[in-house]
């Protein structure tokens, strides 16, 4: 579904990504793991076109993503939940969700999607007309994911959804991701520092270190590799 080949992304003299390749199959969850500064966020930003790589190829369902504009990427079915959640705190929950489905013109479909999201995330339904800055951290994360889902994506790029959340909330969110994969065939690329919880829901994983892929493989195998866990994953 998504293929990344030998991508090099630089910020000035710093090589944030240094020849990264990965393949994502449909209806799977892929975890991208690694320490701070390993290049995880840059990988996501490169995939959806916020950052242009210096070299390499990225294709999505056979189409070249490097020639595509950011808002076109959204229309192609790729949704991005940025780090730090990126909800617009001045707008209400409902308005945030509507922003997720901007390019869809059909009103009934929009209402239907909204209803689905409130069903999927009940805490949001209670606060639908409150400004987003009244939400708790976990609720904001839910809102960010829900907003991304509003565009009916087939590929969801998630950046550090567990950051700053209580383990119980993180577990809820991971559960939701699994449900979406199983029930709606959603494909997810999940960037995480919290490797343990990420691996618990993932099908496969890659580990980045200083912009390079050090390991990739099925999530179960990685979780079982004691050395790897000590060296890169910290659990």
């Amino acid at each position, binding site marked *: 579904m998504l293929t990344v080949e030998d991508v090099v992304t630089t910020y000035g003299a710093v090589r944030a990504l240094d020849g990264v390749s990965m393949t994502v199959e449909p209806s799977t969850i892929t975890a991208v793991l690694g320490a701070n500064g390993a290049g995880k966020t840059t990988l996501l930003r490169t995939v*959806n076109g*916020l950052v242009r790589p210096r070299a390499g190829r990225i294709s999505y369902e056979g189409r070249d993503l490097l020639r595509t504009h*950011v*808002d076109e990427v*959204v*229309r192609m079915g790729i949704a*991005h939940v*940025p780090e730090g959640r*990126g*909800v*617009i*705190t*001045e*707008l209400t929950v409902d*308005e945030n969700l*509507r*922003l*997720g489905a*901007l*390019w869809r013109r059909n009103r009934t479909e929009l209402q239907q999607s909204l209803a689905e999201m409130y069903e999927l995330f009940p805490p949001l339904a209670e606060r639908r007309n409150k*400004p987003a800055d009244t939400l708790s951290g976990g609720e904001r994360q839910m809102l960010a994911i829900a*907003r991304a889902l509003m*565009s009916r994506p087939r590929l969801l790029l998630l950046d550090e959804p567990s950051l700053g959340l209580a383990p119980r909330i993180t577990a809820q969110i991971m559960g939701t991701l699994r449900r979406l994969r199983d029930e709606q065939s959603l494909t997810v690329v999940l960037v995480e520092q919290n490797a343990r919880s990420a691996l618990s829901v993932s099908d496969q994983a890659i580990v980045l270190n200083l912009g390079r892929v050090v390991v990739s493989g099925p999530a179960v195998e990685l979780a079982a590799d004691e050395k790897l866990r000590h060296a890169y994953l910290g659990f």
Partner: protein
Amino acid sequence: MFRFLNLTLNGLTNGMIYAAVALALVMIWRATRIVNFAQGGMLMFTTFIAWDLAQVHHANYWVALVVAVVAGILIGGVAERVLVRPVENGPPLNAVIVTLGLLIFLQALAGMIWGNSQAHSYPPAFRFIGYKVGDRTLRFSPNDLFIVLSVLVVVIALYVLFQRTSLGLQMRATAFNPEVAGLLGVRVGRLLTLGWALAAGLGALVGVLVAGTSSGYVTPVGPFDALLIYGFTAAVIGGLDSPGGAVVGGVVLGLILSYADSYISNFIQTMYALVVLIAVLMIRPKGIFSRTSERRV
């Protein structure tokens, strides 16, 4: 009592004009985080265009008004694209200087085309002689009513645009958080241009409305500049980020100026604006209606 009524009506009319200017400033502020000091210059220029049509070429009042508003929209859009876009992400003061430069440029251009020395009066849309109450005449005329209603209609239309349409939602999202809006597929650049264009169109309407209230109003440098300052004061009182606050700020300022002018002194009008502004800001340093924190100058 009759005097108080007159002052209130007078303050309300002026206040609605300040409110509309404030609203235009708030729209631009929300879109680009820039205080548009060229607002007064832009609406002066479009009013001159209307004047040229109406008084020199004897065009119909409404035709001239529409042309002015369209011209305003164009000027606003072009200004954003050509002048403001390059400094939007630079040091904030540079944007201030660029809008000041634009203001000066427009004043000079208007002077070159229409001259600084003649007195240009603009016709009111309706009768400017006040309504009769018994045997007395109010300082409030059909034309004043028209001004109040026009601004009200525009305010309501903008409210509907911002709160009830997808375009308005996108504009607000862009104003609050352009980066996230962009991630969601909002065409941020276009909406910034649209924000400037709409604000300048609103300004153009105000220019034509206010020009018909006083003789010799249309000059390259002069009364329109004061309008910007009162509009800015009203916007700051309201909280800069809040369109509703801008309207309330405008009306409050209009009323206070009207009362103070009559009960205290006619010579220190701008001093009252200063006192009101300082008083409000000392109590609420970010204006009365502001909820959000400001990002930069």
